[in-house]
């Protein structure tokens, strides 16, 4: 029987080693911590010592960035085996990965690259997710990407693609609200209509992060999913609408670059907490 994702429906924070001392010094108002799987694949040392200490105190989400699930080539069996070792060792409440590819022909690009949404790629992604869930013996969550270009090959809307993958494989979904906002703005679409058609009943975690605002060659807005700044007000507003509709969902604050001090990061989690509390009160009323 596969282990089902069960993070607490509270705010979580992406763990940064720079915050370790602050986090351990006192209990924090944090429901869970999330780590990038690839940072904990060494044999030993401080990364494992810190992760073990966090695991003892908090729920844990392991978030992969390198499995390349959206690639047409077979999954890297060696990498999948490393993920299994990590999940078996720390028994996280959740494991998640991206609807994207990051490796091709033996090269790892360290970026989440877009794939066309077609019946063929849908079959391939579903096969990969089956393989991951079988190997890990647990449900995985699949995250919607942020994108900067359109792919003419695509024939299936992203929300339908994610919904169908979830239906076929039983995987949960990770809804990144910042990614929704970034992609919608980049493709001149309406983020709310994307969210309204998103299969929200399959969502077991939400991500919130900051983005940068740039412009493209033609002067149109181009938002970059940079995780290096506070969460934008527009993204908070979308998030409030999602949880008002769906109820409390585990919600991660992602801040990976220009990492602020722990107090500032914790402040973002407290904002999420307040929005979640409003949503819970509304649904209880």
């Amino acid at each position, binding site marked *: 029987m596969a282990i089902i994702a069960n993070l607490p429906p509270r705010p979580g924070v992406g763990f940064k080693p720079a915050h370790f001392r602050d986090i351990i010094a006192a209990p924090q108002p944090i429901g869970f911590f999330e780590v990038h799987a690839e940072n904990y694949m060494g044999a030993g040392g401080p990364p494992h010592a810190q992760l073990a200490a966090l695991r003892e105190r908090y729920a844990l989400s392991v978030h992969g960035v390198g499995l390349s699930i959206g690639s047409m080539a077979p999954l890297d069996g060696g990498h999948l085996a490393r993920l299994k070792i990590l999940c078996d060792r720390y028994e996280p409440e959740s494991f998640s990965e991206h609807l994207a590819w990051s490796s091709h022909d033996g090269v790892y690009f360290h970026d989440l690259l877009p794939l066309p949404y077609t019946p063929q790629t849908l079959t391939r992604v579903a096969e990969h997710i089956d393989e991951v869930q079988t190997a890990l013996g647990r449900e995985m969550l699949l995250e919607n990407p942020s994108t900067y270009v359109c792919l003419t090959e695509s024939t299936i809307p992203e929300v339908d693609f994610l919904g169908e993958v979830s239906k076929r494989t039983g995987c949960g979904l990770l809804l990144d609200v910042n990614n929704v906002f970034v992609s919608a703005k980049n493709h001149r679409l309406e983020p709310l209509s994307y969210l309204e058609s998103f299969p929200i009943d399959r969502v077991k975690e939400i991500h919130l992060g900051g983005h940068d605002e740039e412009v*493209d060659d033609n002067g149109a807005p181009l938002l970059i999913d940079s995780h290096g700044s506070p969460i934008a007000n527009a993204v908070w507003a979308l998030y409030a609408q999602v949880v008002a509709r769906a109820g409390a969902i585990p919600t991660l604050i992602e801040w990976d670059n220009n990492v602020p001090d722990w107090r500032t990061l914790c402040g973002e989690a407290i904002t999420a907490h307040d929005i979640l509390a409003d949503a819970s009160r509304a649904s209880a009323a």
Partner: protein
Amino acid sequence: MSASFETSFARALLDTARPIPSGITAHNAAIPTGRFAVYRNNVVVGLVNALRSRFPVVEKIVGEEFFAGMARVFVLERPPGTPLLATYGDEFAAFIATFDPARELVYLADVARLEAARTRAYHAADAMPFGVAEFAALDASAVGGIRIDLHPSVEIVRSPHPIVTIWAMNSGERDLAPIENWHGEDALAVRPYLDVDVRLLPPGGAVFLLALAGAKPLGEAAAAALADHPEFDLSRSLAGLICSGLVCGICGW
């Protein structure tokens, strides 16, 4: 076919001279070169940053701009093969040794080797070092035949340049000052507990440790070290081994 889409996308990421792959558009452009450049930039900047975090002293020595340029050439020539970026850059030192614009900094490649060794020690397997009491129990007459298991994090870097001094001055461990007596230094990087120590090995120390790492008995390792350098001091080196937490097991006694 999406496999060919992925192939052409992947090729264009690392080869900026290539036009962007067909099948990529935007709401306001048939060929959105600037938008595709976001992906190109993410890949190169992300991998350069991975090298920057692994080689901070090399960056300090050459400066941010030079480092970014050098790292960029390396990234495009030798992108990583796996998502384990903690090991990316094991070949960076060898690349630096052949990187013409850095050829006047003859020591730079060896400093990079030391930094690479340092991160390997950081991520190496954990093991509990032997305490002094366990050595006190050794039979002194049989000591030449014992074999010593070194801590899994032990890394040795030998250089004809003063790399330990240069590393210490550029990592904030020592004040920057002119190096008047330019000579080779052998470095030890080891992480007995949670912190990585970088130390200057005494004369013969590197040969001694390398022999022990090669499972040579203590007596043989000491002889090799003495042959390497007449000033090799066995009792001082043994004390150093024990006090620095380098010994995790002893067998053959």
